[in-house]
């Protein structure tokens, strides 16, 4: 490392409030900005979930805090819930927050490769957020064509009643994708160019690998949907007929473009979640990650396979039925690399002496919930079974089991674990444990019974199930689910209170409160501007826990055993 070159280019900690907190190029500040936006959106997304559940359990009554929910508004709520949770909570939380905060710290860099581009990303994301919020208030209301925006529902206003809502929705998505595209360029270039001396590719923490694979998968899959969004905007505003059969187009084209991106997107979210789980498990089990290299290779294979599974969302769309078999096969095959990762996670825990602090509880919860969600995926992935359960609440239960296990369980694990590093204070353990148990119990009480509702035949996105006679038997179950969902949402207060209280008055954190090996714990909590007092030199992989004959049971990545043994000589 050329220290002189770095010193010449290093710029001091900016003093001005605006440069420090608002227009900052510091990756840690940018990560916190993303965190603030993601938590804001999570609250709004949670509120839409409450309204959806209220309407299902007590159709056409006044919901507390909102009022009567019109069928058109219900469609808008369903659309916005999906859009918000996937694109404005999951993506910023798992990729932007943890990727931005941890990649430079974990590889021993002072900042991202392109700090100004990083600032541009977060501001484009903020702009996308504003555009999406605006869509609630325009004539015709928020978009109501479903979060997948299938034409003709999204192409013609007469079908879903939206006016400018869908246009703004498309613009917001395109901006959001552009923001994460720039973020991906930054992540990859940073990891390629700015690793500290000794930080070889196979000494990188798993989380960094997962972020990088996710970034590649995202960047190679998002282009077609950006183009598709432009085509849909043209169909709506310029009279083109890309998705209109009357003019020679095909509505299925959108489904292909959407899911060619949409399915890889699932793994873009999933992989960083796995990364968080693995980091946390290794630390609290005090064991090396089992099968570090196979996990990375398996994740790459899964990333590759994710490009050829997309049509499993479209078995009943009217596409050529001969495609169902090949896409069933690839879908089942993709469970092989993920099976390897999950088994490695379990093997990491095997025979360890775990300590059950809050991050560990959430990581274990994430694992359990994900395994269950992964198993129901086998039903959805095989075309013959999917024909029966397609677009029912079984599918809704399935993807909430996989996504919530990642976004919220793994996300919370990461937040509780890295909170001391981000803000310099510890979160409260007791409140954290209460938060975990309430979340875990109520989560399963909401989405477990939902499988039964789905097998009972209840379709997604219907605003009033009571108008169907064949759905009468699932009504009590629906009311139970709604009650549990409200309790699940209320339990999140434990996190909100803990977060805000710890931010202001939590116990001051030491540099390495969890006794971890990775580089971010070698600097102070929170790290100073430009992260490290001196560029760290890396001597080992990230997971040397419970090392025989070592003084402590862990060896940090920058621990130089030669120097230490020389120092020990008389």
């Amino acid at each position, binding site marked *: 490392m050329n220290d002189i070159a770095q010193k010449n280019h290093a710029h001091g900690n900016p003093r001005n409030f605006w440069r420090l907190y608002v227009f900052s190029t510091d990756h840690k500040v940018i990560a916190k900005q993303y965190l603030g936006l993601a938590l804001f959106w999570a609250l709004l997304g949670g509120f839409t979930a409450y309204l959806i559940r209220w309407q299902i359990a007590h159709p056409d009554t006044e919901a507390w805090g909102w009022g009567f929910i019109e069928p058109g508004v219900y469609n808008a709520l369903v659309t916005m819930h999906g859009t918000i949770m996937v694109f404005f909570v999951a993506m910023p939380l798992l990729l932007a927050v943890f990727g931005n905060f941890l990649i430079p710290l974990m590889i021993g860099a002072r900042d991202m*490769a392109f700090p100004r581009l990083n600032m541009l990303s977060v501001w484009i994301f903020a702009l996308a957020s504003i555009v999406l919020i605006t869509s609630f208030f325009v004539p015709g209301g928020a978009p109501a064509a479903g979060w997948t925006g299938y034409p003709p529902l999204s192409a013609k206003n007469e079908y879903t009643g939206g006016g400018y809502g869908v246009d703004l929705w498309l613009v917001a998505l395109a901006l959001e994708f552009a923001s994460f595209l720039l973020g991906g360029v930054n992540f990859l270039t940073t990891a390629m160019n700015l690793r500290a001396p000794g930080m070889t590719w196979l000494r990188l923490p798993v989380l960094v690998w997962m972020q990088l694979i996710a970034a590649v998968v995202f960047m190679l899959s998002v282009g077609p949907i950006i183009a598709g969004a432009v085509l849909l905007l043209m169909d709506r505003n*310029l009279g*083109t007929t890309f998705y209109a059969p009357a003019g020679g187009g095909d509505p299925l084209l959108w489904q292909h473009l959407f899911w060619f991106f949409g399915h890889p997107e699932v793994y873009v979210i999933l992989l960083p979640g796995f990364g968080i789980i693995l980091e946390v498990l290794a630390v609290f089990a005090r064991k090396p990650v089992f099968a570090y290299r196979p996990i990375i290779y398996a994740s790459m294979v899964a990333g590759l396979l994710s490009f050829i599974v997309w049509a499993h969302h479209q078995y009943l769309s009217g596409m050529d039925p001969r495609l169902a078999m090949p896409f069933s096969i690839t879908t089942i095959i993709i469970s092989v690399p993920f099976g390897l990762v999950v088994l490695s996670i379990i093997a990491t825990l095997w025979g360890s002496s775990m300590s059950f602090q809050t991050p560990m509880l959430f990581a274990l919860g994430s694992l359990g919930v994900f395994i269950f969600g992964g198993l129901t995926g086998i039903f959805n992935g095989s075309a013959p079974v999917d024909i029966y359960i397609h677009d029912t609440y079984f599918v809704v239960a399935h993807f909430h089991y996989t996504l919530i296990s990642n976004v919220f369980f793994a996300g919370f694990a990461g937040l509780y674990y890295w909170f001391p590093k981000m803000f310099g204070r510890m979160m409260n353990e007791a409140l954290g444990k209460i938060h975990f148990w309430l979340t875990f119990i109520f989560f399963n009480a909401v989405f477990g019974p939902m499988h039964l509702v789905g097998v009972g035949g209840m379709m997604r996105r219907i605003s009033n199930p009571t108008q169907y006679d064949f759905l009468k038997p699932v009504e009590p179950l629906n009311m139970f689910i709604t009650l549990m969902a409200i309790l699940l949402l209320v339990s999140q207060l434990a996190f909100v209170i803990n977060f805000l209280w710890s931010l202001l008055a939590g116990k001051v954190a030491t540099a390495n409160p969890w006794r971890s090996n990775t580089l971010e714990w070698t600097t102070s909590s929170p790290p100073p501007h430009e992260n490290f007092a001196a560029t760290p030199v890396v001597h080992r992989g990230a997971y040397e826990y419970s090392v025989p004959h070592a003084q402590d049971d862990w060896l940090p990545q920058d621990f130089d055993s030669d120097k230490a043994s020389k120092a020990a000589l008389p």
Partner: protein
Amino acid sequence: MVTNARTMDGSLEPAGKAGTWWFLSSEIPTFGGLLVSYIVLRLGGSGWAEASSHLNLNIALANTFLLLTSSMTIVMAHAAVQENDHKRAAKFLALTVLLGLSFLIMKALEYGVEIRHGFLPGSGIFWSFYYGMTGLHALHVFAGIIVNLVLCIQAARGSLAPNGHRIELAGLYWHFVDIVWIFLFPLLYLA
């Protein structure tokens, strides 16, 4: 400066180059998705060749020539800056900008001719793709012109970093825009 300061050996080049390549790698699926959609729909449809015969091949040929030449001039700008001749680099960049602008003007004239003949974006699926793909490409040309213009002004003022690697990065992007046109031209005008 902040942006390029942090590569491991302190040099300026690798970060920008890697970043540009990653950016381009995400652009390929964007146009790739459109081209594949076009090809698949065209293979399964009828009347596409007839619609295509109404396009003006001469304007498109001239435009192809302009764009290919501009790819050459930006390479010459890069060669000049490598010899530390920033004035010559500025001249070639100005030429690149002019060629790019001529491309856009010709394209606008061509749109005008087609619209006067009654071929609008809503005149059928071929025209949807024609306006959609060439329009998205024209936006990319426009973005490239702005980048090249900024570099041209910097080179003329002598405020470009000594190794001038930014011209190389702009050139990578400009070649990409050129290559997209090489795909669009035969698929829209010749097939």
